[in-house]
């Protein structure tokens, strides 16, 4: 492989891999606390993008029930002045976090309080995902929504040079995605590792019963986990949406599947594992030769399969200890 191609692939892989990582962190947070997969996480990813879009643009068009409804009508404090992109992203991700909290209350807590089989909660979250996707379709239509060109999507490449006669281009959006993801990973690492909230979360993850005996409100910290998970999912959705457009209500489905692959690859419940898994899958996809690029999903999942054969607990997961 030529050096130019190598650098290009590396940058492409790091950018998309970092989005996979922050998206998958949402999955892994919930898994580490409850031991179940929240299948509605892909739908939350989609919602995050739509929320930010609404706050940036102010209204939807096309065929949904919300067609033409203006978020900032004349006479309102923000009349004709939709939010700046950065603020909208923050609020969009926060709203996605709140939706995740709602999902916990509706789909997970009732099951948990009845001591239901975790499989039922999993099915329940799958149902919630389908309801959300269909609601989006009903409310805003199936059309593609693209952020205005003055969001960072249309800016000129951050770096463009020729190496050995071949062009290497690093898009600004790739740099921004990578930087935002890196910042989020650092913040999350700090929150989980160094703060009281993080300690409490880790205690709940280790043993909810013991945590409860220590005076930690398990339900409250489960809600916090879901909020963080939704926030990260919504942020990932916004990053992908602004870079490539919000491709309809089913936008998050592929990312949902990829996120699953990432956390399994990294090691279920492992936060560093989710980051490593995201980067590995992103890079694996990027290094698929261009003429076979349509098969990059298959390559990513084949890699997952191979790694699981060699290391069933995932890259950074711990092998389960069986007491005899």
């Amino acid at each position, binding site marked *: 492989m030529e050096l130019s191609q190598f650098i290009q692939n590396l940058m492409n892989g790091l950018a998309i891999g970092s989005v996979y990582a922050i998206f998958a962190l949402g999955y892994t947070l919930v898994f580490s606390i409850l031991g179940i997969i929240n299948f509605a996480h892909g739908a939350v990813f989609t919602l995050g993008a739509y929320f930010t879009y609404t706050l940036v643009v102010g209204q939807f068009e096309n065929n949904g029930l919300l067609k033409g409804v203006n978020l900032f009508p004349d006479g309102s404090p923000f009349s004709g002045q939709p939010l700046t992109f950065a603020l909208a992203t923050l609020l969009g991700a926060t709203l996605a976090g709140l939706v995740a909290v709602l999902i916990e209350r509706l789909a997970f807590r009732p099951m948990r309080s009845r001591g239901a089989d975790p499989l039922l909660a999993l099915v329940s979250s799958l149902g919630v995902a389908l309801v959300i996707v269909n609601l989006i379709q009903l409310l805003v239509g199936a059309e593609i929504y693209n952020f205005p060109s003055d969001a960072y999507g249309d800016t000129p490449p951050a770096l463009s040079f020729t190496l050995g006669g071949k062009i290497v281009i690093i*898009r600004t959006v790739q740099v921004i995605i990578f930087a935002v993801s890196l910042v989020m990973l650092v913040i999350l690492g700090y929150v989980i590792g160094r703060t009281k909230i993080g300690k409490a979360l880790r205690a709940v993850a280790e043993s909810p019963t013991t945590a409860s005996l220590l005076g930690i409100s398990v339900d409250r910290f489960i809600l916090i986990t879901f909020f963080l998970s939704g926030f990260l999912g919504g942020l990932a959705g916004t990053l992908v949406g602004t870079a490539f457009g919000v491709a309809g209500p089913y936008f998050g489905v592929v990312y949902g599947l990829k996120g699953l692959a990432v956390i399994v690859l990294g090691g279920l419940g492992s936060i560093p594992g989710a980051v490593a898994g995201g980067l590995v899958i992103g890079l694996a996809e990027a290094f698929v030769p261009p003429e076979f690029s349509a098969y990059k999903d298959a390559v990513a999942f084949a890699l997952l399969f191979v790694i699981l054969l060699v290391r069933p607990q995932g890259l950074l997961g711990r092998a389960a200890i069986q007491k005899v």
Partner: protein
Amino acid sequence: MRHPAQRRSQLSSFIRPALGATLALSLSLGAQAQKVETISIGVAVAQTSNTALLGQEQVIGAKFAEKFLNGRGGINGTPFKLVFQDTGGDEAGAINAFQNLITKDRVLGIVGPTLSQQAFASDPIAERARVPVLGPSNTAKGIPQIGNFIARVSAPVSVVAPNAVRQALKLDPKIKEVAVLYAQNDAFSTSETGTFQQTAKDQGLTVATVQKFQTTDTDFTTQVTAVLNAKVDLVIISGLAADGGNLVKQLRQLGYKGLIIGGNGLNTSNMFPVCQKLCDGVIIAQAYSPAQPSAANQVFVKEYTAQYKKAPPQFAAQAYAGVQVMVEALKVIDRKKKLNTWDLDDLRAELNKQILLGKYNTPLGPIAFDKEGEVIQKEFYVAQIRMKDAKTGSFVYLK
């Protein structure tokens, strides 16, 4: 306790007469011809799923036809009704929709489904039930050959697509090297790219690189850098609106300055919000143009634009044409014998016969059908996208 054999015998003594009675009843119902109660035409298109991007335009086109044609007297003074069924984007959805329209809604004919792939699954059901079908957007090879009751108003891609390459060469005769990109998980795009590649070769062009992608892809940096490194003069894309639009956008963002041709999947204004200003200049071959000068089209364009504040797209025009053909065929039949006096099965068969016999002045221009149900359309168009701003654009007809 009774022996199981006794229970079986007792059960069979009850079931046999019951089954016999049911069978006799169903046979007598089957033998009893169903009368035509309402003049209803089925529209089975994708209102949900990713395909809804195209299907929603068809719904608008069909609804517009219903309102407009009923406003002009319907079927010789009697209004007709459209019955909509959502096919979703897959084969199972199309089959369900067809079955409902045929057996529950008892429609006279069906306009649909949206995708060729769906048509191959659902059209045989209509064929077996002897219900006429008009495909509004099924451009793949072999659709009319599914059966005697299957026809289409959508010209096959093999006829439409080459016009775009010829027009590109007219705009820039220096074009030599071509890059071809297509969605390899979409049957239509895979088939369309074959036509494009053959046309490029026939026109003496060199296909320098062929790149594949998935309709679900969003990041095309790999494909775009490969295209840039191949230093081509023309890019030809076969995909759908979301991925194709994104590909156009990223090609332009990363510095590709040459001409771009989009296939039929990009022939929708739904592409505009994706690539926004960067859609400008993309060449699309079309089976329909709002600029088509016939009176039928100009009335359609005027009324449609007044209602929807935009020029009608091809998918809407073809759905309109599908409904119009059914209505006009029914008008001819009604003049000979009132529709409400027909038996349903007979009327369906007669409608199919009349559809294939007639000549129609539709917004697509004058059309007719060959004996297999293939549309005979003389006029095709090549348009270039012109964006007014980031949101609004139009397909400008190139002569």
